């Protein structure tokens, strides 16, 4: 049962579509950034910027981290820093690791299939350029 429409009504605008696509990827990207170990919010944002073209409105990431924590995917701890104020570090829980593995698997097979589908479109574009 689809409780929610896949895209909002104005979803046929390309920039809106791209925004939705990015939004869908942010949760997975946030989990993936913690795969190697704990990070605090700003480090996660910088990591996503450097490792992918996932430039975000910085405010977006914090509510997502908050929700992932409420869902038991992440834990957090406050650590006193030299900066003079504490920082909130996030780490993956076992459930979070498992969810990320499932997401990575689904994402990889999904994007492989779509790339195949889009191959003729991309080739056509290269020829005309």
């Amino acid at each position, binding site marked *: *049962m*689809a*409780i*929610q*429409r*896949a895209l909002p009504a104005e979803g046929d605008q390309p920039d809106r579509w791209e925004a*939705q696509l990015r*939004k*869908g990827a942010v*949760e997975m990207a946030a989990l993936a950034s913690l795969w190697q170990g704990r990070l*605090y*919010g*700003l480090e996660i944002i910088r990591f996503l910027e450097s490792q992918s073209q996932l430039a975000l*409105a*910085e*405010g*977006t990431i*914090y*509510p997502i981290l*908050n*929700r992932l924590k*409420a*869902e038991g995917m992440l834990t957090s701890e*406050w650590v006193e820093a030299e*900066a003079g*104020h*504490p*920082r*909130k570090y996030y780490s993956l829980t076992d459930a979070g690791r498992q969810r990320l593995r499932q997401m990575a698997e689904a994402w990889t097979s999904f994007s492989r299939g779509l790339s195949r589908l889009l191959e003729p479109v991309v080739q056509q574009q290269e020829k005309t350029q």
Partner: protein
Amino acid sequence: MTTEMQIDSYLTALRLHLGPLTIAERDEIVCEISAHIRDSAEESGASIETILARLGPAEELAKQYREGLLIRQASRSLSPLVLLRATLRLATKGLSGIVVFFLAIFGYFMGGGLVLTGLLKPIFPANTGVWFNGGQLVSSGTLFPAPAPPAHEILGMGYIPIALTLGSLTLLLTTFLIRRSLRISQQLQSKL
């Protein structure tokens, strides 16, 4: 306005708009965003205006925190009021949400009504029950005036356990259905 004043006014607005969250949750969010602002300023040397602009308006940030909270809390609740509020929110999100909302209203109305008539039977024994006429259902519930003969009531005091059981089952089923729908919607939302 000094830098400190700008940060303070942003954090105050954020705290204000986080209204429905608990005080502990609000404190933690404000503390984290405050650390973000200070770290960003140190790290990049960017102006405070730029840093706050990248975070987005405090009201918008708070809204993102609040979103999903109602539905998350409600999917663990048993209270009809909390559940109905959450289904109302669900109804604004699409057609299936509207269906769930009306099913919820219908379920609570039916279940509650049955339980109520079960409780009214001892007070209005002649006016509460299930009336038949020649093998055909005429009416049921608590009625003023009661259906006139030849329609006759068939259950007697047996109406009480039947109405209470059916009513409670309907209420339970409704609660279960709403919570299930809220969970599904949550999962869909987190995948979007």
